[in-house]
């Protein structure tokens, strides 16, 4: 299989690799996927409690090149955004940006799940109510 230049770029030079202190109240952690499925993504965010802006995003991914690229791109996109705004990112946006072929769409789905899981964890920690329908809320 050949990869798009953007996938190769994110794979070769992944952005925002790392680990945040998951015990901090400002940090939300999302761990999605499963080792037996061949991909696990951990995405972490540090949110400014005053502004609700995601000031830092870090990831680590076990998975194929497209999974690594999808999570790397996700951290790039959510950094500097407000939490509610980050929730508007769709897996299809990732597919488009990275030109993922159909067999790799699940990588982008996982990245979207990771964003939601990290934000969900942060909300839970900080007693912020989950938005019932994120899509509607964002529109």
């Amino acid at each position, binding site marked *: 299989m050949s*990869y798009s230049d953007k996938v*190769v770029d994110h*794979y*070769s*030079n*992944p*952005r925002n*690799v790392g*680990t945040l202190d998951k015990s901090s109240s400002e940090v939300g952690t999302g*761990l*999605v*996927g*499963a*080792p*037996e*499925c*061949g*991909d*696990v*993504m*951990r995405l972490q965010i540090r949110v400014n409690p005053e502004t609700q802006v995601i000031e830092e995003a870090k990831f*680590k*991914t*076990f*998975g*194929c*090149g497209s*999974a*690594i690229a999808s999570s790397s791109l996700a951290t790039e996109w959510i950094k500097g955004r407000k939490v509610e705004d980050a929730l508007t990112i769709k897996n299809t946006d990732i597919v488009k940006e990275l030109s993922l072929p159909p*067999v790799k769409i*699940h990588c982008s*789905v*996982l990245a979207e*799940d990771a964003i939601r899981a990290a934000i969900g964890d942060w909300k839970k920690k900080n007693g912020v109510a989950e938005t019932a329908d994120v899509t509607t809320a964002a529109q």
Partner: protein
Amino acid sequence: MSTVVSQLEVPAGVTLPIYMDNHATSPLDPRVLEAMMPYFTQKFGNAASRNHSFGWEAEQAVDLARQQIAKLIGATAKEIIFTSGATESNNLAIKGIAEMYRERGNHIITQVTEHKAVLDTCKRLEKYGYRVTYLPVKADGLIDLEDLKRAIDDKTILVTIMAANNEIGVLQPIREIGKICHEKGVIFHTDAVQAVGKVPVNVIEDNIDVLSLTAHKIYGPKGVGALYVRRRNPRVQIAAQIDGGGHERGMRSGTLNVPGIVGLGKACEISMQEMDSEAAYLRGLRDGLKARFESELDYVHVNGSMEHRLPGNLNMSFVYVEGESLLMGINDVAVSSGSACTSATLEPSYVLKALGLGDDVAHSSIRFGLGRFNTQAEVDYVAAKVIDIVKKLRELSPLYEMVKEGIDLTKIEWQAH
């Protein structure tokens, strides 16, 4: 900033990309090409043309190839049937025997790590009323001979078990399997594609009745193979699956691929002459590669028996690193992976799963297939490159980090998707 780009220098004498996938196919040996060349142009005759010199010339070349192949496996020239390759040989053997011996019984025994050319042929026969037993393998990849003995019943007509596995290179105990079959009066077919020319295979000593082989795994051309069919003690009969001009003693019609057959013969001759030295050479390269991985990396795992294994095969899992991402990082080295992401079906290797390994180990596996033309310098480069990329990808791996922190990954509730 992290990077997964390797900065290794390419040593002198190494040309990229490096081919280390010799179980998939092997390069044509220049000596084989040389033998084949005249049969494309000057000596183009049809081996079935009985009444002119063009035909005789072609027939002579085919006869020589038959002898070269027979000699390598301890058979006689008359027992060699030419085909288009091992997939056809396996189809012809299994379907041809099933059809010919239908009156005697409808039960076939095989095992779970066979090549798809065997498994899918058996599956098709199940649709036509045959009963197929798929023996399991042990953790080392070998079948249990007691399982085989128990599986044989009075309706069993055929046992088909491979000599060497294409993914993990393990060698099944074919001599003992053949002995059991002969004691019970059951025909024994073996798909010996990966074994012939690499390790000694002798149809008499190993009690083999029918054997599939192909040229392109032994530095011969693609598109030509053979089926050995025993003529005495016992005489095995096979119903033709391709009808036509009655070539190959009626078992396989179709004009013979003379240049290909000449190439197959020459490839067998060379393999026979060089098998001992080549096996020792490849074993040395392979064991060196394995030792480097084991000394410089943690959490590496050899898949399948090391004791009963092809000399040029190493199948290793680099746990907590996904195989396709590793292949992407070593893109100037041609190897293959058992990872789901490298297969069209998104399923990890059924061979590795059959060993009882978790899917996560299968996802992390790389098959190194060393061959005649690989050098020590290439192996050194590949080892360094793989080690480098594995370390970099583990810096990216949440699983590796968790394991290092002492977290038991089996205790986590993963969300399978």
